């Protein structure tokens, strides 16, 4: 029983939603009858999932507090930094849940321009986020340096395609292309790089997407048919 019930829940919910997606046409008016049930399911299950996900925050938040509190209490390495996490986490929770700084009481939006939460977002969150994002420029450079080598046929192809497109996006590429005689104009680097993106790249992306869809179908059928004796139950 302990294993059977979760399996039944997964299968029932999954099958009902698939049938719903096959039957309901969102643009059409609900016509009552059997469709009313599917309409209800279509509108509500995703909301329920979201409620569940927010409810799970209790577990996530508890885990975050526990891990960092233990570090502080046990004076483990870097415990002082854990204190930074604890203080900032609790402070933001209080500021946000009590809607401090905005209109009186709990009225108005939590992201009101005058709310303290907005100040926290603009002053701390935003600069941290965009700097982390900017680190990517460096990581792109070092990944390119390491990976794009003439090691095998595959990595050479990767290198050449990347090289052509990179060069095609600079004035240098345009300048070099001008050295080509008119008869070889189709080899111009800017033309070539656009061609790579518009033709082989499209073919590759399409095949990847079609393959993924086949994988998703197989995963869904296996899990819903209960043919997937996963060690961890349905999940």
């Amino acid at each position: 029983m302990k294993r059977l019930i979760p399996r039944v829940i997964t299968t029932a919910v999954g099958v009902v939603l698939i049938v719903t997606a096959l039957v309901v046409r969102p643009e059409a008016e609900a016509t009552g009858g059997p469709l009313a049930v599917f309409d209800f399911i279509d509108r509500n299950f995703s909301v329920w999932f979201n409620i569940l996900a927010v409810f799970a925050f209790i577990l996530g938040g508890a885990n975050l507090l526990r891990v960092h509190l233990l570090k502080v209490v046990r004076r483990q390495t870097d415990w002082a930094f854990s204190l930074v996490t604890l203080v900032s986490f609790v402070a933001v929770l209080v500021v946000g849940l009590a809607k401090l700084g905005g209109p009186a009481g709990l009225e108005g939006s939590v992201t009101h321009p005058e709310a303290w939460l907005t100040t926290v977002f603009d002053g701390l969150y935003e600069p941290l986020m965009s700097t982390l994002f900017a680190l990517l420029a460096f990581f792109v450079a070092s990944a390119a340096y390491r990976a794009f080598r003439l090691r095998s046929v595959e990595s050479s192809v990767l290198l050449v395609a990347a090289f052509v497109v990179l060069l095609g996006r600079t004035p240098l590429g345009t300048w070099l292309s001008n050295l080509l005689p008119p008869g070889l104009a189709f080899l111009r680097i800017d033309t070539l790089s656009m061609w790579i993106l518009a033709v082989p790249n499209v073919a590759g992306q399409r095949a990847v997407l079609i393959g993924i869809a086949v994988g998703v179908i197989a995963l869904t059928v296996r899990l819903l048919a209960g043919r997937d004796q996963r060690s961890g139950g349905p999940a």
Partner: protein
Amino acid sequence: MSDPSRTGLAERLGRLDRRWLYLVLLVAVGVSVVLRPLFPDQPSVFVRPVFERIERLEPGQSVLVSLDYSPVSAPEIEPMAFAITRHVLLRGAHPVFVTLFPEGPAMYERLRVEVLERDFPELVAGRDWTMLGYKAGGRMVINAMRQEMAAMFAGDAEGRRLGDLPGLRGYRRLGDFPLVVSLSSGTPGLKEWILYGGDPSGVPVVGGCTGIGTPEYLAYFPSQLQGILGGLKGASEYEAALADRHPGAGFPRRAGRVMGPQTVAHVVILLFLVLGNVAYLRRPGRRQPEERP
């Protein structure tokens, strides 16, 4: 076996600490952000037809320019709108603006203040250029304009009647225009102008789009779409062509200035690629794991 000193260099390059790469990239981009260098640029095969089309306009002809973008993509598209508008006016032609985006009128306002009024103070709205405004409906708007401009627009955005607008005299439907320019960040935009405007009416369509969106439109080039400006690079190429052909005008090169640090970064990364491979090919024996601090 090659010269030992060269092998030594190659070996050191191969085991180069990644932090040197970071430092070189940081300094190169940082310096170019401060100095804002302007690199010579030239129109590619995609941009040149757009430039030549507009260069061939007769004084007094009207061009339909559709501002199909929003503030989000303005950093890429707006320099194109500025450069093309300047070019059209420089040729003595008459731009007729429309927009299929609800944010389009705000984009036109920026264009009016920063280009029309600043660079062409002697020109007058309604007489030398026309803004018809925003209409919701995407491709349906284009369909209607193909039949009859008046069916969609009773007048311009400032309330002048269509019949009183000199820029639309003799332009009753889309097919009467010598050229349609769509500056587009998505849907509705360039694709709709090609499929519902250019293809059925035969009017030549050119356009500009974001860098990410470019490959999608290449399928229509060069027969259905006669030319396209792709992202900042396309805008920068156009600005360079404009400065080259009309050196006296002295317009600012907005995209060209941002392209400076971009180009520097690309060249640095290209250099890394070349150095990495030189080191790899010159190394004696098998590949060793690179040094990790």
